[in-house]
């Protein structure tokens, strides 16, 4: 297992910059996610770590050792691909053994290690099958097995859950987390699914447009988003943004006020001190199980709020909303940066 240091890494395809001077420090044994919308460069960065893509500038270090110019095959890195990339003409056993064969490991060692990985992932019954004869979830486990079988310095995962259906995805991500805890492997996990990243990671690197937006623990990112992009990207439904001059509190037109729907609830009594309070017309009630989403029109803008019990609320009627002072985020409208509050 190794720590990974990404120091000032930039990459461009011709004139198009893909990664812009990124600095990320991944400690040994940590689970780190690269999170961002598609096209933000997260997969490219992963491939740069793996050595499948050359960086244009900057350095990549494993345990302090510079590997920027080391070929992919010599980096001792494993990668689980989005489409799993199982070798179609080899059995599951052949797939698991392949990396060990390439290392010229002795045959008994290969057999022992394949047995170990197969047991760990519950693949023992499937060893003689061809990848085409496996279900999606089984293929995914074989891919993970092939990645861990040779004890890599770090395990990279490129959206490994995106081809699974929803319930299996939730189940598998728990397994991945448990596996990582058990093996104490350094894992770099690329995803565009914020929930996946939140659940799995020790730290999340939020990326957009090839630049790092924020690198922090999941709850810090949720509670104190560093800028407008992170605030809007993390959390579902999306955070509400109000112009500073329309929202009460006198923040001025150069600021944006952000408040998450979960923090914004209907209130009957007058606002307490420091509370954000808004009033408008209730447009829609959307039941979502444990709570209800309220669409409220305030000053020509649709704002999302939540409530546990919608009884007494009718669409079309006036409504007052309030959010506690601590849950209000302030951003600079021009730079998009969070204003300390």
């Amino acid at each position: 297992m190794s720590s990974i240091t990404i120091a000032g890494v930039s990459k461009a395809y011709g004139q198009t910059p893909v990664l812009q001077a990124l600095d990320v420090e991944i400690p040994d044994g940590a689970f780190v996610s690269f999170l961002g919308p598609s096209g933000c460069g997260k997969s490219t960065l992963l491939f740069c770590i793996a050595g499948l893509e050359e960086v244009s500038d900057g350095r990549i270090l494993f345990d302090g050792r510079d590997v920027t110019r080391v070929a992919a095959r010599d980096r001792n890195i494993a990668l689980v691909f989005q489409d799993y990339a199982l070798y179609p003409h080899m059995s599951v056993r052949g797939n698991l053994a392949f990396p060990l064969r390439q290392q010229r490991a002795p045959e008994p060692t290969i057999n022992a290690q394949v047995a170990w990985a197969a047991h760990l992932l519950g693949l023992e019954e499937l060893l003689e099958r061809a990848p085409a004869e496996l279900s999606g979830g089984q293929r995914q486990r074989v891919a993970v097995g092939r990645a861990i079988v040779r004890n890599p310095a770090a395990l990279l995962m490129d959206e490994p859950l995106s081809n699974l259906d929803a319930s299996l995805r939730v189940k598998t991500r728990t397994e991945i987390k448990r596996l990582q805890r058990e093996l104490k492997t350094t894992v770099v996990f690329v995803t565009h699914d914020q929930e996946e990243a939140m659940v799995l990671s020790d730290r999340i690197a939020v990326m957009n447009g090839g630049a790092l937006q924020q690198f922090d623990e999941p709850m810090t990112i949720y509670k104190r988003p560093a800028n407008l992009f992170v605030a809007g990207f993390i959390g579902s439904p999306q955070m509400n943004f109000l112009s500073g001059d329309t929202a009460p509190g006198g923040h001025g037109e150069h600021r944006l006020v952000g408040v998450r729907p979960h923090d914004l609830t209907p209130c009957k009594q007058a606002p307490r001190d420091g509370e954000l309070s808004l009033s408008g017309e209730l447009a829609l009630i959307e039941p979502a199980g444990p709570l209800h989403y309220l669409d409220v029109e305030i000053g020509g803008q649709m704002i999302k709020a939540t409530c546990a019990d919608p009884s007494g609320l009718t669409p079309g009627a006036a409504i007052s909303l309030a959010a506690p002072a601590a849950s209000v985020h302030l951003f600079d409208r021009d730079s998009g940066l969070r204003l300390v509050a």
Partner: protein
Amino acid sequence: MAAFDTAEVAPRATRRPKLSGRRGGLGRVPAFAYLATLPTLLVVAAVVGAPLVFSLFLSLHRTNPITKRWIFVGLDNYAALLVNSDFWAAIGRTAYFAGFSVVGATLIGMAMALVLNERFPGRGFLRSVVLIPWAMAPVSVGVLWSFIYAGDYGALTGLLNDLGLGGLALPWLGNGFRALNLVALTNVWSQAPLTALMLLAGLQSMPGSLHRAAMLDGAGPVSRFFNITLPWLKPNLFFISVVATINALMAFDLLWIMTRGGPGEATTVLSWLGYLTSFQFLRFGEGASILYCLTILSFLLAILYTLVLGPRSAKRREATAPQGDAEGFAEIRSRTAPPMATLPPLRPRRALPRPLADFLARGGFALLALLILLWSALPVLALVLMSATPASDLIRTPPTLVPSQLTLQNFQTVLLPQSGGAFSTSVQAKRVPLALMNSFVVGAVVSAVCVALGSFAGYAFARYGRRRFFGASLWALLLTRMTPALTLVLPFFIAYRVLGLIDSRTGLIIAYCSFLLPLSAWMMRSYFEGVPVSLDRAALIDGCSHVSMMWQVLLPVVRPGIVAAGIFCFLASWNEFLFALILTSTPQSQTIPVVISGFLSQAQFYEYGPMFAASVLSILPPVLVAFFFQRYLVQGALSGAIKG
């Protein structure tokens, strides 16, 4: 009113459960589908099926060309073949020729495909250049290479002389076994691009992540080629060897031009023996039986291909079957866990420093790309050079490649026969402009007809290919692609004599349509399969009739396919030699390959210049297509790859 029609059609199209036609049928087969395939099937039945039956009939008879009497002899012709040593010798040579061609074309095609699959500046150019030997007419290939190998004044001998290696020169085609090898090598030269294209298609369908995964697993380039690439290409390789074998079995034009079965009988392969028996000795019955053996041989290969391909497609369907995802990682973990093995420490394998290894890899790649460029382009450039060389230079001894001057005289001779000049234009050279014209007219009409009829048939095959009627017709089409033209040409000849179509452009057009229509239907089918059925349904719901659905919605969508099929049919008919040779006799209808071959028959030394000029003109359309419509040509090759 249109709305009323829609109401009639729409429920029919949407009522069916979605599952019944996974690849998309549209429910009950409408009469339109049968109508759409009818012309193609009729043509195939009449123009390929009937001649095949006739040929079989013929092979059971002994005919006398003078008395025109047919005597039924049962299987005697075949029995006679079994004890005919010439026949067995020809079989042996055919096997050798086919083996040489297949192995050679596969090895060279593989190198080409691997190089052309990489990204590098000039890849598009190299792809086009590589295609040229395959796109040009076999007759032009034959003319080119027979002059390269020509004994006293040939280009190869000339090149050796120029390099001061004159002592190495040999009468290249003079020795029997050497001649067989050289003809086979020429066949490899013209067939390797096709192999390369098919392998390239296989390489491009390979998910990029496979190689990346293997790279991370520690596999180097050689290990990845054998562990990943080669197994991935296995089905392609099998298909390629069948196609290449059938093409080699049918090789005729090259032999006609280069060796005519000689020296002695050294290059008399089965197809040539059949041609000789039928058209030189006029023993139609015996000839037909030889050619029938050839036909059966290619059918057997075709069936073998089908059988082997069958299980593979079945397996692919099965791939999506298991859905039992219930068990997780840990369910089975209760048993005692095997311990983790101690792995050997990772040792870096790289003996050379990275920059040096990279440099060597790049250098090796560039060298390989250069070799492929030279292999494909040099002979063609030699042809161009020779066409610009004064005719007298071409027969100099000692030979040299360096012309005394460059001249357009040869082109002037063939294109402007009236202008006179220093050389009087011979009878043969005067035929060139008309022949180019004939080739062009025939090619244009053939491609128009084939594309028009083939599109409709292709649509029906794409949408209803799973129905028995259409499935069976589809395989019938495929089998017709495997029928050697030599088997068909004799019945054509006899039928045309009766119908008075001999020596007419109309006759040629009908003949070419007969074997290019299945090809264009096959190509269009693969294009229509790429169009989602929902588009058909939307058009029908929006009030289109079947015909207006085709015209307004589907044909515009498959326009690239139409262009590809049109180009492919045009080139195939432009390059065709055998039918044109047998079915025409006067300049009024002769096409350019026939006229070029006529230069050779006359064997007049001073005619070489004009002959090369004519050859250069004949390869002009294929070369232009290779450069400007490369994509379409590739597409055509991939979907209609059965015939070279």
